[in-house]
């Protein structure tokens, strides 16, 4: 068998599996939504809810008649959290599957590895990853739905300043999310009159961070501690923090904004604060909050369909897909340049993560206020403001 036909076969297997998601085949060509996500591997807690969200809403949109009278077809690959895989699958989506738009990229590494390809090919691309480098400097074809880590750092520091803290200890994971968050925190801390007096890190699979926390709590004049990281690491940090009986206000990043974190950290999480999308506290939102209905709708639909609790990360995929659909509808076709222009033009779109106002110099489109400060109280999230 030639290499070509082998590859074709692989393509056919993948395509037929994804095609089975479709309820009915229509005469019109389907609109192809491409996606590469970290469904397994160390970042699976991002990719897993993201894929579930995409599958579920593509199905739902198709039941309701599709977009522009055409069905949506989701073609997705699992990059296992590996950037070179992500790049390869992005290439496959662009050149082999010839999708109309890409919504994907769970991690910053995966997104950045795919970015040169989408830029060269002129493919609209909505990333679901966090770091500010994705949209700053702005790349013509690259958009993203989550707030950037820089914004998260700003929001946390803003809350710390408000509470009168001026010296903090920082502990971060050495993975992409933690390392980038650490860099942003160190860069913007000065603007809030806050000094980082202790700066520690931990590896992605470390099982005990007591040594680092001991150093932080012994640093001179620390008022509060911030942990930037995701995965199980921050839960271990939280448990160690409680075990050491450190009597300082504790902050986490939006990287742990899921109920799974509360399950892992248990009582130890009591009293910690973090910036998060309102998805975790839909009931607490005032009735006049424009996001309330969207957030509640997504949460209910997701939890009913998948029988597992909703996480912030799935919300990124929801917004990514909806932005894509909106741009395609506005463009009236799947012409890539037109869709891109419409994406850049989106304003006032109310999503799960926040309200998006894109602009040529802002391919994220979210304001810092889209982050709400939450506090853990009695084992649940509570809206501080």
């Amino acid at each position, binding site marked *: 068998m030639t290499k070509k036909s082998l590859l074709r076969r692989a393509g056919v297997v993948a395509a037929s599996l994804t095609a089975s998601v479709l309820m009915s085949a229509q005469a019109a060509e389907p609109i192809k939504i491409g996606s590469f996500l970290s469904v*397994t*591997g*160390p970042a*699976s*807690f991002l990719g*897993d809810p993201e894929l579930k969200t995409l599958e579920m809403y593509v199905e739902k949109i198709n039941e309701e008649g599709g977009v522009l009278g055409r069905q949506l077809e989701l073609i997705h690959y699992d990059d296992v959290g590996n950037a070179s895989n992500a790049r390869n699958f992005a290439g496959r989506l662009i050149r082999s599957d010839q999708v109309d738009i890409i919504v994907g990229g769970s991690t910053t590494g995966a997104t950045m590895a795919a970015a040169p390809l989408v830029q060269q090919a002129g493919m609209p691309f909505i990333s679901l990853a966090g770091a500010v480098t994705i949209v700053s400097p702005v790349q013509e074809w690259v958009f993203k739905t989550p707030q950037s880590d820089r914004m998260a750092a700003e929001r946390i520091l803003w809350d710390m300043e408000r509470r009168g803290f001026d010296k903090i200890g920082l502990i971060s994971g*050495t993975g992409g999310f933690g390392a980038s968050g650490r860099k942003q925190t160190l860069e913007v801390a000065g603007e809030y009159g806050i000094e980082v007096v202790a700066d*520690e*890190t*931990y*590896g992605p*699979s470390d*099982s*005990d961070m*007591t*040594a*680092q926390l*001991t*150093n932080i709590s*012994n640093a001179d004049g620390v008022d509060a501690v911030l942990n930037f990281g995701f*995965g*199980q690491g921050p*839960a*271990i940090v939280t448990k160690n923090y409680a*075990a*050491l*009986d450190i009597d300082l206000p504790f902050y986490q990043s939006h990287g742990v904004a899921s109920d*799974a974190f509360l*399950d*892992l950290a*248990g*009582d130890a999480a009591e009293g910690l604060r973090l910036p998060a999308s309102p998805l975790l506290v839909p009931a607490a939102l005032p009735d006049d909050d424009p996001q309330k209905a969207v957030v509640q709708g997504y949460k209910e639909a997701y939890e009913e369909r998948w029988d597992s609790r909703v996480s912030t990360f799935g919300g990124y995929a929801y917004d990514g897909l909806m932005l894509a659909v909106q741009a395609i509808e506005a463009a009236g076709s799947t012409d890539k340049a037109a869709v891109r222009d419409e994406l850049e033009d989106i304003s006032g779109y109310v999503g799960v993560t926040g309200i998006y106002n894109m602009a040529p110099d802002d391919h994220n489109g979210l304001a810092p206020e889209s982050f709400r400060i939450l506090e853990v109280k009695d084992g649940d999230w509570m809206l501080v403001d």
Partner: protein
Amino acid sequence: MFSEFLQFLFTGITIGATYALVALGFTIIYNASHVINFAQGEFLMIGGMATVSFMGMGIPMFFAIILAVLLACLVGVALQRLAIAPAKNADVVTLIIITIGASIFIRGIAQVVWGKDYHVVPPFTGNEPIRLGGAVLNSQSLWVIGIGAVLVVALIVFFTRTLIGRAILGTSMNKLAAQLVGIKTQMVLMLAFGLSALLGSVAGVTVAPITFTSYDIGILLALKGFVAAAMGGLGSGLGAVVGGLLLGIVESMTAGYISSEYKDAVAFSMILLVLFFMPRGLFGGRTVERV
């Protein structure tokens, strides 16, 4: 000042005891067959994940643990029967790839059966940490250290006092001679894998309350266990324990006093240094290489 040192030491011992338990699992299989079993970490994973899963079915923790350990032993025996035994004359590096393939396979199955989430295993006895000289020790750490100590003693007794244990050692030293004196070497190898799985899964359940557990927790634990075993000297039970503790303490001291970013790099440099001066690890045997 001293309390800080004590804290780093406690942390190091806790981490190190975990590594030591994994390293002991490597040692048993290595002793019986000279295979480095890169799937060792998956026994830990099965121990932790199966306990969570059985507890989820409403089985009390104690019995859930026993069932999980039995499951791991079964997997260990199957691994030997189905993967290692058929490839008996393969190169060292081929055997390494087989065990790596097995570990990927087991992990893949676990991911399908148990999902990808992290899970909590409740601590054996309460959540309350123990305070000592200004430092804090997790009560579960005592369990890790205690169970580790019991297992080491049990292994020493098993290998020196029991017939089966001696048979395993005999097989490791000279397979042909062992066969000649009537030892069923295949049986012995199966036993060694089962025993190693038992050790690994017990370790997995014991450390799970500290580290949490998920389908992919085995990869790095196995790697650290291999480092500990090699540093101590492959095949030496004492070496595995000392290697594990040393590795843990070096990691936590480095994180505490030098740089948390480079603690793993320092640990790996240390193993290089040990091997430069003691090419068979700290307690490795000086066996003569056959021509």
